[in-house]
């Protein structure tokens, strides 16, 4: 997903109405936002954090010092590790590491949904889709079980390709928007499960 499209999607999720225009810079097509009242902002996570503030949803950047640092750390991870690599081994390492990090967590900061979850989700999206397309999906459950649970829907008992695909597609189309419209800080785990089940049906 091009950075500009990603930011536009984020704007919608945040309930920002006006719709910024983004230009792209350099070979890597780094997004640039021309703000009304100041110099332009460059960089995906920089602009994303700025949008979150504009939408008065600062809690998405974390509330304690620790959370704030963790959020920024994963944002950095997104643009350096996830975006930076395209060879299979690197991708595998990224997925494996994330998977083991998320073993005992609901979200990247623990129990609070933040901007880091959104951007990392967007960033991983292309890998997972690629995997599905290449029918490597059999590797998926053991490697990325908890990522799936985190990013999409921890659907009890869903292991087959088809079900995964359904979960992904649902998520692609609705999940993120939905999550944004409804989720509040510290949302309990069972609540997500329930929503996921709803979605599935």
């Amino acid at each position: 997903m091009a950075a500009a499209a990603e930011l536009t999607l984020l704007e919608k999720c945040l309930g920002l109405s006006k719709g910024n225009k983004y230009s792209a810079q350099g070979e890597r097509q780094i997004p640039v936002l021309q703000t009304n009242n100041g110099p332009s902002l460059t960089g995906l996570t920089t602009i994303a954090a700025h949008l979150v503030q504009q939408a008065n949803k600062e809690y998405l950047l974390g509330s304690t010092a620790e959370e704030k640092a963790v959020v920024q750390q994963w944002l950095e991870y997104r643009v350096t590790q996830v975006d930076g690599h395209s060879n299979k081994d690197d991708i595998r390492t990224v997925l494996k590491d994330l998977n083991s990090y998320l073993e005992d967590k609901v979200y990247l900061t623990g129990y609070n949904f933040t901007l880091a979850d959104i951007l990392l989700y967007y960033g991983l999206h292309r890998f997972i889709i690629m995997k599905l397309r290449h029918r490597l999906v059999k590797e998926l459950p053991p490697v990325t079980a908890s990522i799936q649970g985190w990013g999409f829907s921890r659907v009890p008992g869903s292991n087959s390709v088809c079900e995964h695909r359904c979960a992904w597609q649902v998520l692609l189309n609705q999940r993120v928007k939905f999550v944004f419209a409804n989720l509040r800080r510290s949302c309990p785990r069972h609540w997500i499960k329930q929503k996921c089940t709803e979605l599935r049906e």
Partner: protein
Amino acid sequence: MRLFVSEGAPGSLPVLAAAGRAQCRAELLISTVGPEECVVPFLTRPKVPVLQLDSGNYLFSTSAICRYFFLLSGWEQDDLTNQWLEWEATELQPALSAALYYLVVQGKKGEDVFSLVRRALTHIDHSLSRRSCPFLAGETESLADIVLWGALYPLLQDPAYLPEELGALHSWFQTLSSQEPCQRAAETVLKQQGVLALRPYLQKQPQPSSLEGRAVSNEPEEEELATLSEEEIAMAVAAWEKGLESLPPVQPQQNPVLPVAGERNVLITSALPYVNNVPHLGNIIGCVLSADVFARYSRLRQWNTLYLCGTDEYGTATETKAMEEGLTPQEICDKYHVIHADIYRWFNISFDIFGRTTTPQQTKITQDIFQRLVARGFVLQDTVEQLRCEHCARFLADRFVEGVCPFCGYEEARGDQCDKCGKLINAIELKKPQCKVCRSCPVVKSSQHLFLDLPKLGKPLEEWLEKTLPGSDWTPNARFIIRSWIRDGLKPRCITRDLKWGTPVPLVGFENKVFYVWFDATIGYLSITANYTDQWEKWWKNPEQVSLYQFMAKDNVPFHGLVFPCSALGAEDNYTLVSHLIATEYLNYEDGKFSKSRGVGVFGDMAQDTGIPADIWRFYLLYIRPEGQDSAFSWTDMLLKNNSELLNNLGNFINRAGMFVSKFFGGFVPEMVLTSDDRRLLAHVTLELQHYHQLLEKVRIRDALRSILTISRHGNQYIQVNEPWKRIKGSEADRQRAGTVTGLAVNIAALLSIMLQPYMPTVSATIQAQLQLPPPACSILLTNFLCTLPAGHQIGTVSPLFQKLENDQIESLRQRFSGGQAKASPKPAAVETMTTAGPQQIQVLMDEVTKQGNIVRELKAQKADKNQVAAEVAKLLDLKKQLALAEGKPLETPKGKKKK
């Protein structure tokens, strides 16, 4: 909380500085771990520094750790800081880790290292100076400053990597480095060993991915459409309306061209190619082609322009070549001079003079400069230990010795420089030296030599540089190279050689010696001019009125920017010294390297046989000109650029504009009634034209070419939006609109033909003939866009300018030029004689090889005298070499021999 660090891990610097600055160092427990220890349980690859929080969670990102410390001290995050940290992680770190890896692990130095980070450093410098803030994110130092300072410190603490031009960066860096938390962090991490303290850590790290297949980008930077003020539009329209009237009278071509007081006088040189090498594409773009574009541009500006070059003919290499080919050195020079001249003629290089260095003028001027240097005490005498090959009975010039590099152990280091580590080598320091001709081991003999006393000339040199460099257009790499030479201390430099083929040394006791080519080759520019006009001193002893532009690849910088200026300053004869030294980086060939000594790549004389016109070669080479960073010649890219930029963009636009005039208006330029959109377009084109001028005045040749393509893109869009081919069939108003659009478009095409002249002279002339552009307009380029084809002007016959390059055509060319030129098989100079031998000759040579092989085997079987065997082996090798050349095959590498 516990901080895990590792000896020499660069990330410790910002982390410790931030902890100090945010006053949380007291709460930190610090544990030192090995560089390969996995501290963070969920990360596969080891990572330090890592901060383990009291919650048990880990922070493994250096910036995040620093941020955490700052957040604890009550600091609040802001957009600007976020932006800097994101830039640090995505742009600075990849460049910096590559640079540190080069410097610390691979032992590279200077420009190799600096070129990796130049862009990033310039970005910081510009941001600081543009905002005129002392710190990155405001008036006080903050998180962004600490993180970037910490990242940069290991490199920038060596002043060599912090050039003075980057003034704002310089003072920012100094300010931070002097602060207590930063100082303490630096002491703890670098332990006063400088950057080498990082070695234990960096050695254990994989090579940074930014270095693997370091992408050499041939892509342009983004174009942004500027916003125009009403005033600018009005000015552009006014200039346009004046049309041809505003052209000054064309100055008649002078012969000889001489400088005129009060006018702009531009003297241009391109590095003298060494006569016995056929230049490859990299040489052509670095020297003659770049200089040619600038010379043509300079003439379009009506500046008095003299562009000269010539072959550098003296030296051992010529002597050896002569021996090989059984000719005299003079005959060799005569033969190859013609080859060079032909190649440049084919590439349409507009020399005023293409001379040579083996002339009486060269002797006269060189000896004069030398005598003056002697008289002023700038020449020293000393005994030199030198390698002499007893088998060949001569002293060996640096380039005729090969051996093991004393610094890095590379096995095929040349006598003057190691190709691997890039260090300059004194030939007698080579381990296991070998004569490159006969492969026997040379001995060290002593000989009397003369030296230019560079240390004594250091002061005038520095004074001159201080006066010349600021505000000049010396390329950053040239500045850097000169600065590092001066920093490392100037040493006396030998200017004589034990040879016959050279300029004789006019001093008693030196009758059998000649000047070292690098003392007198740069004097070649003067003597070549002297052969062109007896008034040569008007150019070369006239520093007040002449701007001297010298073009070269970066390896030539020391001789032009330092050695020659020292000779000239020492001679105290008011010589014109280089005002703008324009050095390119290197051009690579596909995935490998062009190399004079190994003969890999496409060479000048072969370009003609590809069926691709010279202008297309010129265009593509200039499009990828290694300006600011290395670039690569790629066949696929050439096809792409030809088909997209030339055919679909430029050619398409110019052709359509002309065709509309012919088809819809009977070949006469229609009446133009400008609307506000047209005026805006005029202003955009004018702006782009001015941009083109600014760039070329600064000799940014590659960038200026983009301006041409941008204008034609605007033009294509303009036609596409206005659809003259539809409107011509419409109402009266529609037809008028079609006329205006066509008229404006064809005038843009005319402008493009002039802007294109320095780059593609033949195509430019073709367009001008098709459009019947009035002669004065063809030879002058003003800074404004004029209506040069007014309503009623009749154009000529329009036809397509470019041809599509097909995939299979390019594929077969790639095959043809890669055959036997693979990296592993160096092929010295084979290209020159490849096609000359017939089958009979080959048969004769094969027989001789067999015969000689038998002799060698016999001798070996008899356990004959070593020297005798060596001599016969040398003969055999020579025969094999001749055979390989005759067959056009790559040589068996001598490396294989060693392994046996």
